[in-house]
Structure formats: structure tokens, C-alpha cells
């Protein structure tokens, strides 16, 4: 271990004390009616508010990076610190004690998923070019995977990449791209050989989003904001050195990204969605609505809280395992399922408690604000892999149940497309 944990902790504390303020007030303290009246899973704000938050996030990431905390587990060659996952976990838990900007816009997709993918599959030059810039807070990266026709069936991407000399020309449409409107870089899966089986004709490319032919359009979701984008690629010329992995071996690249996605979803209970399953917050909700002594409401609260607490125990235990060097397996999908279930349940529970004050904004704090969470809940069951896909993963990969027959993974993609279209 390059640095003793105790020394590391001292160093982190020194850094945080110098650059941030420690949080005050216990977790149990909730001042009902005070502070921002927002309960939501999504993060959309007015464009100017959002732009400012992105700038602040980038600045904080830069500060971390300049002080050696920007990429703790990354190789030193690319600006990383070369430390272990344990150091990272320790840093995270210490930082959580301070009021620091939310860096989710950089971290969740870019640093959490795309960074490791570039590290694993990128050419040396590309790693040098992008990794320090990403972990240094300058470049935000996004994922250009999903397409209108390739949702759960991700390996059916149709965006074409055709080689022209040292370049590839990309054409197609991507969708459900979060943070694209703030990003400078995208990781795109493209069809490079439709005559091979669908998983074997895909190639992965890093796409500079400032290139001509890249058109990013916000996609408004049902809760009102636009956390996602459609990205249209029209004759976008990408240099061959921006290819990740071999030609037609992009599915393996995608799996690296998805594996890291699984590690980041679920579990998260902080932020404006965390309130919805926080016991002190719910207690005050009941008190404010005169329902704290109603046995029917109490029972539902207890049931909701028990499920949420157990899910938190589960995530904590998974973290402990991770600390001990055990990689999370496919059973992590349970966490994602529960996260969606618990937030959904909490939203309807709150609706029951606030009653008609949820349907029209009377201005009362902590009532109509639940609508945004409520309207986010359907997305939780779909984003990052639908509930159905998660259950398939659990059944097939954890329990070893046989795959569905009649799913063709062997025929050339071109033929699959044709037959699907004629049968639909």
C-alpha cells in the first residue's frame, strides 16, 4: 500500500478542512418548512442555474485533482494517484462530512463509467489526451449507447460507422443520453458490420462532441425537466485512433462500461430523492399533516422504512465487501430494483399523506413538491436497464435459469432486422 491509511486520512482531512466546510447538524434533524422545497430524482434546473452548477462542479473536481484527490485509483501515468478502492471509499466517506459541490454531472457517467472504459480499451495517446482532462474537471463525457430501436436490446444498435481512410464516418441517432448537453466527449457504439451476428459487428468510438455533424437536442421527460438528450450524428468524421478496442469488438468495450454502471446505480439515497425515504423527513411529513398518530399511516411508514433500512444495510454490506476486495456480482441488480421500488412506494405514500394538496400547488411547503418525485418514479424502473432486464439478469446469471429460447444471437444482424420488421 503506497500510503498508510492513517496518513491518508490525515491528508484528506487537511485538504477538506482547507477547501470546504464541515456539515453541521445530525441526520435526525429536519426543520420542516425550511430550505429548498424540492423532492426529486432528476436534477434539471433552469438552464442558467444548471450551467452555474456545472461550472461549480468542474471547479471542485479541479481542486480535488490539483490536490491529488481527483482520481485516487487511477494510474499515475494519466494523472491518477495509484491508490486502492479502499482509499477511494475512505475519501468518499470523509468528504460526505463536508458541504461540497455535487459533481454527479462529471462523475456518474464520465469518471465512473467512461473513464474506466477508456483506460481499459484506449490507445496510449488517447488515454493521455482525455483521462487527465476528464479527471481534472475539464472534460465531461457521456455515453452514446441507446437508440430508439435499440432499448433493452442494446446490441441492436444501428448507428453506422463506415471507414474512410484514417477516419470513420458516423451516421445515426442516439437517445437517453444524460449530461450530453454539458459534455465534450461521447462514447458511441456503432454498427460496423451488419453481416456479422449482432454482438459481433459493433465498434466503439470516442466522439468529440464539438465535431461538425453532432447535434444534441434535449429530450423533455414527463416530470418536466430535460435530463436526457437525443444525439443525432450526421456524417461525423472520427479519427481511427479514437476507436476503443478492435473493430467489431465494441460489445466487449460496452460491457466494461455497463459493468461500471451497475456499480454506480442503486444504493444512492442522498440528495433531493434521499429525503423521500429518510425517516426524520417522513416523520415530519406525518407530523405536519396530522397523521403521526394514525395507526394506518404508521404501519405503512414502518413497512416502508423497514424495506428502505434493509436496502441500506445491503448496500453497506456490499461496500464492505468491495473494501475487502470482492467485486460486486450480478446480484447488485437487486439493489437497483429495490431503489426503484422504495422511491416509488415513498412517493405514493407521501401522496396518501398530503392528499389533495398534491394535485394543486397551494404553496404549502412539502406538499406539491412531491409531484416531481412521483413523476420521476416511472423512469426509475426503466433507466439503466428495465426492471424486466434486471430480473432476467438475476434469474439467468445468479440463479442459472435457462435463457429464453428463440432469441437469435447467431444470425447476421442484417437478417434479424429484416425479419423483425416483417413480423412486427
Amino acid at each position, binding site marked *: 500500500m503506497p500510503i498508510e491509511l492513517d496518513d491518508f486520512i490525515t491528508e484528506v482531512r487537511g485538504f477538506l478542512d482547507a477547501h470546504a466546510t464541515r456539515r453541521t447538524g445530525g441526520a435526525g434533524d429536519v426543520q420542516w418548512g425550511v430550505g429548498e422545497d424540492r423532492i426529486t430524482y432528476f436534477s434539471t434546473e433552469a438552464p442558467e442555474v444548471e450551467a452555474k452548477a456545472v461550472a461549480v462542479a468542474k471547479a471542485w473536481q479541479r481542486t480535488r485533482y490539483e490536490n491529488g484527490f481527483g482520481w485516487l485509483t487511477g494510474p499515475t501515468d494519466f494523472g491518477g494517484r495509484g491508490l486502492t478502492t479502499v482509499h477511494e471509499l475512505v475519501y468518499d466517506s470523509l468528504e460526505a462530512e463536508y458541504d461540497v459541490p455535487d459533481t454527479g454531472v462529471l462523475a456518474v457517467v464520465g469518471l465512473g463509467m467512461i473513464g474506466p472504459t477508456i483506460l481499459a480499451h484506449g490507445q496510449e495517446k488517447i488515454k493521455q489526451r482525455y483521462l487527465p482532462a476528464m479527471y481534472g474537471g475539464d472534460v465531461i463525457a457521456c455515453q452514446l449507447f441507446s437508440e430508439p430501436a435499440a432499448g433493452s436490446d442494446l446490441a441492436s444498435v444501428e448507428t453506422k460507422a463506415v471507414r474512410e481512410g484514417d477516419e470513420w464516418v458516423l451516421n445515426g441517432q442516439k437517445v437517453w443520453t444524460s449530461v450530453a448537453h454539458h459534455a465534450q466527449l461521447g462514447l458511441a457504439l456503432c454498427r460496423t458490420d451488419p453481416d456479422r451476428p449482432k454482438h459481433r459487428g459493433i465498434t466503439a468510438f470516442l466522439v468529440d462532441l464539438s465535431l461538425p455533424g453532432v447535434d444534441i437536442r434535449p429530450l423533455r421527460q*414527463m416530470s418536466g425537466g430535460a435530463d436526457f438528450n437525443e444525439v443525432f450524428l450526421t456524417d461525423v468524421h472520427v479519427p481511427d485512433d479514437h476507436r476503443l478496442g478492435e473493430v467489431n469488438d465494441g460489445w466487449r468495450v460496452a460491457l466494461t462500461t455497463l459493468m461500471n454502471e451497475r456499480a454506480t446505480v442503486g444504493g444512492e439515497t442522498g440528495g433531493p430523492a434521499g429525503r423521500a425515504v429518510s425517516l426524520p423527513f417522513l416523520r415530519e411529513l406525518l407530523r405536519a399533516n396530522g397523521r403521526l398518530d394514525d395507526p394506518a399511516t404508521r404501519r405503512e411508514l414502518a413497512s416502508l422504512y423497514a424495506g428502505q433500512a434493509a436496502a441500506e444495510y445491503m448496500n453497506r454490506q456490499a461496500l464492505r465487501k468491495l473494501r475487502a476486495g470482492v467485486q460486486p456480482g450480478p446480484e447488485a441488480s437487486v439493489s437497483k430494483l429495490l431503489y426503484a421500488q422504495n422511491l416509488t412506494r415513498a412517493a405514493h405514500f407521501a401522496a396518501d399523506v398530503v392528499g389533495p394538496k398534491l*394535485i394543486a400547488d397551494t404553496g404549502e411547503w412539502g406538499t406539491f413538491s412531491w409531484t416531481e418525485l412521483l413523476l420521476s418514479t416511472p423512469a426509475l424502473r426503466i433507466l439503466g436497464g428495465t426492471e424486466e432486464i434486471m430480473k432476467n439478469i438475476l434469474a439467468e446469471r445468479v440463479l442459472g435459469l435457462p435463457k429464453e429460447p428463440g432469441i437469435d444471437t447467431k444470425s447476421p444482424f442484417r437478417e434479424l432486422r429484416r425479419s423483425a420488421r416483417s*413480423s412486427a
Partner: protein
Amino acid sequence: MSAGDETTVADADSEELLALREAVRDFLAARSDEAAVREVMIGERGYDEKVWSQMAEQLGLQSLVLPEAHGGDDAGFVALSVVLEEMGRALLPAPFFSSVVLAATALVAAGDDEAAGRLLPGIAAGTTLATLAAPGPDGAWHTGEGALAVAASPADGGGLVLDGTAGIVLDGATADEILLVVAAPEGPTLVSVPGDASGLTRTALRTLDPTRRFASLTLAQTPATVIGQPGAAGPVLAQVLDVATAALAAEQVGGARACLETATAYAKDRVQFGRQIGSFQAVKHKLADMLARVQLADAAAREAAAVLDGADPEGDPGVASAVAHIVASEAYMSVAAENIQVHGGIGFTWEHPAHLYFRRAKSSQLLFGGPNAYHERLLARVGI
């Protein structure tokens, strides 16, 4: 629509009502399709006045269920249910529920010929928009707990004046005439207040469901006219709730069925993994569950309407309506959510109509108090 001396109870599957259903459906498809709904829902009034007039003039929908004596056709609640089901299916944004269901039922139930004569013909013709609210302490429907939020006191020159706030009034910003249940010295009293009354301030509220509008009303020494007897609003309100929850259930069934049909169509159309997703058993069984819920809600809503029409002399309209209110509220909410799930990503975009049904489903479920109120109401109706 015919009506005579003898009670003829309509069957929703009768040829006459099937024709009515078709007429309403065709009308709404032509005049209030999704594009039209989306335009109206971001507009200020929240409904299309031209469509509203045509509903009255061409189809006579506003007058359908009202008493013949006051310009109505006395067609019965089963007929009303058919109309509301279609409106629910199309998410029609219109003051139909507030004016024709809530206010008109209250006027009939109050048995006040003067008030009925003054307001019902206009409601039936669609030229008067009325609404009803019985605001309790939280501004929403008074469900028996706590005091009424608007107080009535004798005015200097006779009559009553009102003070208080009605926090969440359906179509309260656009109604020409607002009926309120208020706390008078004699007890809960039904009164009416014109929309332009002195001391009345109306504020349109941001709503969960943009196709259904609410307003907050504050009243300061606002003059009001008593309807029926002072202190007699309790039983009137009970009767209104029976009719309103049965009517709402029909509307909910219409919306729920639209969700089921959309999801089914999408499951047949959408291909993933080389197959229509509707061939995957998980999707199939989800849709079967949705179907079961819709059928159950449909049965309950039909029963409530038939019992209100007197089809089953042993049936109790209070019980049947309360059952329908619970079952339809939960079916619609669940089906509206599952419809999005079947659609996947596209289902939670703003552009897809699925969220409009989701919003309407939740809004309807909570309109008269939500689960906290409707379970106890059923037990009260069966005397437990």
C-alpha cells in the same frame, strides 16, 4: 334520449348507449384529439370554449343527465357513465365534471326549486359553468374531520356573507357560479356565489394534471345565496359524493382502458431481441394483470351507475359508489404506471401521452381525499 313516467334503466351495452358512446368518441376524436388536448392544457382557461359549446349544441352532453324540468334529458347515470368514460379516455379538458356532475347534482339534491330554476337550465345548455366545493381545513374536500374552512355569517342587509379560503376548487377560476358548503350558524350550508362576487379572489393553481384545473378562492365578506335549507348541506353532500365518485369511477375506467389499449398496441408493435415484446411472458402477464384490474374497475363502475339508476332495488348507491371509487382509483393509478413501463424509455418522455394519463390517474385518486379518506368512507357506508 327518451324518458318517461316509468323508470327505464339503461344498460351500458344497449344499442342506444352504444350509439351514444360512439357519437361521443367520434366527436372527441375529431375535436379533442391529443394535439388539441395539449394545446388546451397549456392555455389559460384550460378548456376549449368552442368544443364545449359543440358538446352542448350538437350532442347535448351537458343536459343528458339533468332533470327534464330544468332543461335536461333525464337519461340516467348509466348514460352519464358512458359519456364520462369516453371523456376520461380522451382526457378531455373541460368543466364537465365540476359543472354537470358536482354542481348540478348538488342543485338537484338540495331540492331548491328557485336555485335549480336559476342555474340548471344554463348548466344544461352549457352556457353557465358552475362548480362545487366543500373545503375542509386543508382546502380540499371536507371529509368529516375538522371544521369547514369557509364561515358564513348574517349580512347586514339580510342574506349571508362568507369569509375564509377554499384552497383547492375544481375549475374554480373559470366557473360562473360557485357552490360552496360553508359553516353557517345552523350547520353546514350550501350556498352559491357568482364568480365575480365582491370580496372573492380567485387564483389559478399549478396542477399535477394540466388537463384538470384548480383554483384557490379567498372570500372576504363575500355575499352568498343560501341553497336549500340552512344547515342542511350534510345529506346533500353525501348524495353528491355518491354520484361524483361513481361518475369519477367511470371516467377513471375510460382512462385506464386507454392505457391498457395503448400498452397492448405497443407490445404488439415494438420489437426487441427480434420479437414483438408482447410475446415475452413478463410483458404478457403485466398486460393480463392490467386487463384484470380494468375489468374489475369497469364492473364496479357499471354497478355503481346501475344502482344509482335504481336497477337493483337491493343495491345501496353509497356502497356501490364507494367500492367503485376505491377499485377504479387504484386500477387507474396502477395501469397508468404500468403503461409507461411497457413503453420503456419513450413512455416517460413529455411527448408521449402516457404521463398525461399518469397525472390524471393520481389527480383523480386524490380528488376527494385519496386512500386515507376513501377506505373509511366505504366502511361508513356499510355501517362499520
